[in-house]
Every structure is written in structure tokens, then in C-alpha cells.
């Protein structure tokens, strides 16, 4: 198989619920072995797309191929070869860590001997070996998340779908999880990730699409998107809420673009420090200033006029 073939492709993909259109005709292709992201705020249609790709939700329109098969006709065969990590952990809290893996592995046709060995291996991967025969209920959020991911790996999936993998986790747990996902990618597992966290998308994704209101508004690698839709640096001028409007006219020509947020101005420029100095020279006195590199957050703001979180 060629490594650049599309392992998943959607064309004009639509998902409708009664009178609500959650996904409104999207085109995308995921190549074997890459980490592909759907980035967007809550309600953008990411999860609906993921559920269609994981063959748990029939499409309402358009075309979809997963591993070369049509989910409408080959759902079980596709599910046998993919791993699904849902937004909310749905582990069996009344079973042990080991039992969760073994019971689930059996649904994929693995023998008892195979699931026993697989469970040991996956517990090691998820750093849960010392909890092997403990109930799942009292585990921390990060541990449960890792177990959910381990469970999705029980069939050695070719594609792992992760819906908001780190939402609700503390920073330490997030980084551990990212490390695990990176290991999987190195082993050749194709990763598909939805997230509304910029840093997560930047860390994990080779390529991503930005979704908003059920549509794809941009596509590319994180670096490409930043180059295309933002400048190299951003100068943030923070004001008491409301005072930022007065400064807009004074700084407008200092940057390629100025975004007005409720408590600050964002100045998109190639040289943040120079802009800081010039703003100061013109008598602009913010509470604080910050020069940073542009991120996907800025891309999203540019594309939709809104911030991602909140």
C-alpha cells in the first residue's frame, strides 16, 4: 500500500438531525500514518463527523470511505479495524482495569489467550499495570482516559479516532497522554483527533481542518495555516475592559491587522517588539503588553471572528 493513499475520505459529507444540520457538506482526506485533526469550537460538527467516520452514525448525504469501504454497508468490518475513543469515557466502572480490556477485546473476535496477553501489554503501555486488578471507578480522570485509549487499541487498529482526548485533564495528565499518542503515531497508527485546544492541535497534528458551523473553513498543516492566516508575531495590549476601543485608531497602522477583543487588542505584525515601542511612543498605555508567536487560535480568530474557547 502506498503511504500517501487516502485511508479515509469524505466528499460533500452531511449529517442532519431532524431539522438541524450538524455537518454541512465537508470534503477531507486522511492519509495512512498521519495525525489528522478536526479543530473547532463546541458545536462545529467535529463529533458528528467522528461518529460517521467511526461507523456509529449513518451519514445523511455525501460520500464517505473508511479503509476503502462504505460505512453504510461494511460498518462492522470497518469497526473491527479501527479504534474509537469517545468524548466521554464509557468504561465499565464496575470491572477491573484488566477485565475492561479483556471483555472488550473479545468483541473483536480475539481468543481468550489473545486478550489475556493483549491486556498485559496495553496496561503497560497505559501505565496502569499496578492497577491491573483494581476497580476502574476510583481511578483518576487521566488514568481512565488512558484506559479508554488502551481499550481502543485492543484490536491493533489501523486508525485511532480520538474525540476531544484531553478535555477535562490536568496539564500533567495531558502531556502524558500526548506522549502516548505520539508513540502510537510513530508505530504507524493513523490518528484522527478532534479538539478545541490549539496547543493540542499544534502538538499532535500533521494536518488539520478548521471547522466552524458544520463547515470546513481552512485546511493545512499548523505551520501552513499560521503562515497563511496570521503574521509571525502578535502583540497583545491588555486594557481595562472597554478602554481598548480608544487605542484602536492610534495603533491601527502599526500592524497588518488589529483584532479587538473585550479586554485587549491583538496586533498582527512581523515584529512585535518594534510595534510595542511605537505604540508606547504614541502614548498608548495598556495595563500590560505581551509579544508572542502566532498560534492556531489566531488563525481561528481570523477565519471566524471568534475565539475558540468561550
Amino acid at each position, binding site marked *: 500500500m502506498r503511504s500517501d493513499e487516502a485511508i479515509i475520505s469524505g466528499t460533500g459529507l452531511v449529517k442532519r438531525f431532524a431539522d438541524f444540520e450538524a455537518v454541512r457538506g465537508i470534503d477531507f482526506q486522511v492519509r495512512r500514518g498521519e495525525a489528522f485533526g478536526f479543530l473547532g469550537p463546541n458545536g462545529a460538527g467535529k463529533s458528528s463527523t467522528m461518529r460517521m467516520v467511526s461507523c456509529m452514525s449513518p451519514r445523511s448525504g455525501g460520500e464517505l470511505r473508511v479503509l476503502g469501504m462504505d460505512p453504510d454497508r461494511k460498518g462492522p468490518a470497518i469497526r*473491527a479495524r479501527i479504534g474509537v475513543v469517545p468524548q466521554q469515557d*464509557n468504561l465499565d466502572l464496575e470491572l477491573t482495569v484488566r477485565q475492561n480490556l479483556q*471483555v*472488550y477485546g473479545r468483541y473483536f473476535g*480475539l481468543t481468550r489467550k489473545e486478550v489475556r496477553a493483549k491486556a498485559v501489554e496495553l496496561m503497560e503501555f497505559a501505565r496502569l499495570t499496578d492497577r491491573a486488578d483494581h476497580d476502574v471507578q476510583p481511578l483518576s480522570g487521566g488514568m481512565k482516559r488512558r484506559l479508554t485509549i488502551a481499550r481502543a487499541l485492543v484490536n491493533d487498529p489501523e486508525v485511532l479516532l480520538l474525540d476531544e482526548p484531553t478535555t477535562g485533564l490536568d496539564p500533567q495528565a495531558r502531556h502524558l497522554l500526548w506522549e502516548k499518542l505520539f508513540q502510537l503515531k510513530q*508505530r504507524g497508527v493513523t490518528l484522527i483527533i478532534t479538539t478545541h485546544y490549539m496547543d493540542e492541535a499544534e502538538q499532535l497534528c500533521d494536518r488539520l481542518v478548521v471547522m466552524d458551523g458544520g463547515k470546513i473553513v481552512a485546511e493545512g498543516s499548523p505551520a501552513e495555516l499560521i503562515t497563511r492566516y496570521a503574521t509571525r508575531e502578535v502583540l497583545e495590549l491588555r486594557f481595562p475592559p472597554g478602554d481598548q476601543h480608544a487605542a484602536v485608531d492610534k495603533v491601527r497602522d502599526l500592524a497588518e491587522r488589529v483584532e479587538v477583543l473585550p479586554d485587549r487588542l491583538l496586533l498582527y505584525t512581523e515584529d512585535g517588539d518594534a510595534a510595542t515601542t511605537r505604540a508606547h511612543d504614541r502614548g498608548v498605555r495598556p495595563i500590560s503588553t505581551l509579544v508572542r508567536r502566532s498560534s492556531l487560535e489566531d488563525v481561528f480568530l481570523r477565519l471566524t471572528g471568534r475565539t475558540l474557547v468561550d
Partner: protein
Amino acid sequence: MTATLDRPTAAATGSVVGAWRAVWLRVEGRWTWYRRHWTASLLASGLQPVLFLAAMGIGFGSQVRPGPLTDGVPYLAYVAPTILVSGLITVGVTEAGLPVLSGFKWKQDYWAVASSPVSSGQLFGAELVWIALRLTFGAAVYLVVAAVAGGWTSAGALLVPPIAILAGVACAAPVMAFAATTKGDGHVFAAVNRFVVMPMTLFAGTFFPVERLPLPVRPLAWISPLWHGNELVRGAALGGLRWWPALGHLAVLVALLVVGIALGRRAFQRRLVV
């Protein structure tokens, strides 16, 4: 790290198993859970009918003289078969209610199954088979206890458990379908118990013949699955069961089961595949 995770994931190891095997694998998963938590549900599934037998058949029954109302046999022998039917229907309906709703809503393990190669219809089948197995266990315990207590008067008693299990499963299937369509918090199941199961238990011929009911309410007993089960088991255990009525009663229970399975499969599919 072990070998299998290290190899390039060229091909997944999962496969689609046959429908009956899928059902069986899910039942096996339930058994794994049960082995860990059996004590908590023993009272509900295993012992509840036995307690009724002790209280009504042995305790209360000691005060009842055999007569025309009891078909001439001791009250214990009169109610031993029917208490099992009523008990298994109660257990079946209970297991088909909140626990099924929880699979969708709180425990959410049904969603985990839905992301595996096991289909929604197979999941439904497995949950129903699992209930049937629980009822079988309860029936086996009951058969022995009632025998020790002297509740059986003929070999026809051996027909009582299968009929009672059929009645229990036939009632469970449509309740599972109903549970799969329930969006709320499941208070409705308390109502089902209070307004359907409980009156049925009391008035559908388990403890006294329905002919003692006022004529206007008798049809309510006749349409209840419990009455059909009761007629069958009492006839089998005490004798006097005639072919045509027996086939009729059996047909009602089988029809209820078939309709319940059709509705249940559809309801599971509609809830899980959206």
C-alpha cells in the same frame, strides 16, 4: 514494550464474528461482571420467588384448607407453580427496565459495544439472553426449594420452569424496547412496576383463581401475560391441562416474545445508530 505493539500496524487483529457468537461474547462479558457482583443481585434474581413461596405458600398457605378453590390440593401446591411465573416476570421486567436504560444513559457501556464489530441487534439479543440465563438460575433454585418444601405433586412440575422462563423473557423483551426509547430518568419504571406488574401479580391468578374477580375486571387478567403463564403451569403441575387452551396460552407468550424482540432490536438500533 512487547512485540505486537512494536510491529507496524499494517493490519488490525480485529474481525467480525458471527451473529450468535457476538451474542455469546457479550453474554460472556456480562458473566464477567456478574461473577464480581453476584451477591448484590442475588436477592432480586435468585431468591425473590423463593421468599414469596415461603411467605405465601408455606406461611399463609398453612391457614388455607384444600377445597374447590385450590383445585382440591394444598395451597402450597396450588401456588408453587404460579409464584415462579409471577416472580420471574417481576425479575425479568425489572432487569429489562432501569439496567437497560442505564446501559444507554449512565453506565453507557452499550455505546462502547456499539463501537465494536458487535451490532446493536446482537447487543439486544445478548441482553435478552442474559436475562433468560438469570431467570433460568432463579428457576433452578426455586425448583429445588419448592420440591423440598413439598410444593410439587407430579412430574409435570418439570414443565413449570421452562414455561415460567418463557413468560419472564416474553415480558422482558418489550420492556427492553420501551427502556431503549426512554429519555428520562427512569421514574417511569417505578410506575410500570406499580401499575402493571404489581396488580398483575396480585390479580392474574397467581394466588387465587381469576373467576373470583368481579366480572368487569376479569378481562384485565385475561390480557395479562402472567395469567396465560399461570394457566399453563398450574395445568402442567396439577394436571388437567387441555391441548387447545394450552396452545393458545403458549401462542400468546410466544407472540409477545416475538413482537418484543422485533421492537427491541429496532429500538436499540434507533438509539445507538444515530
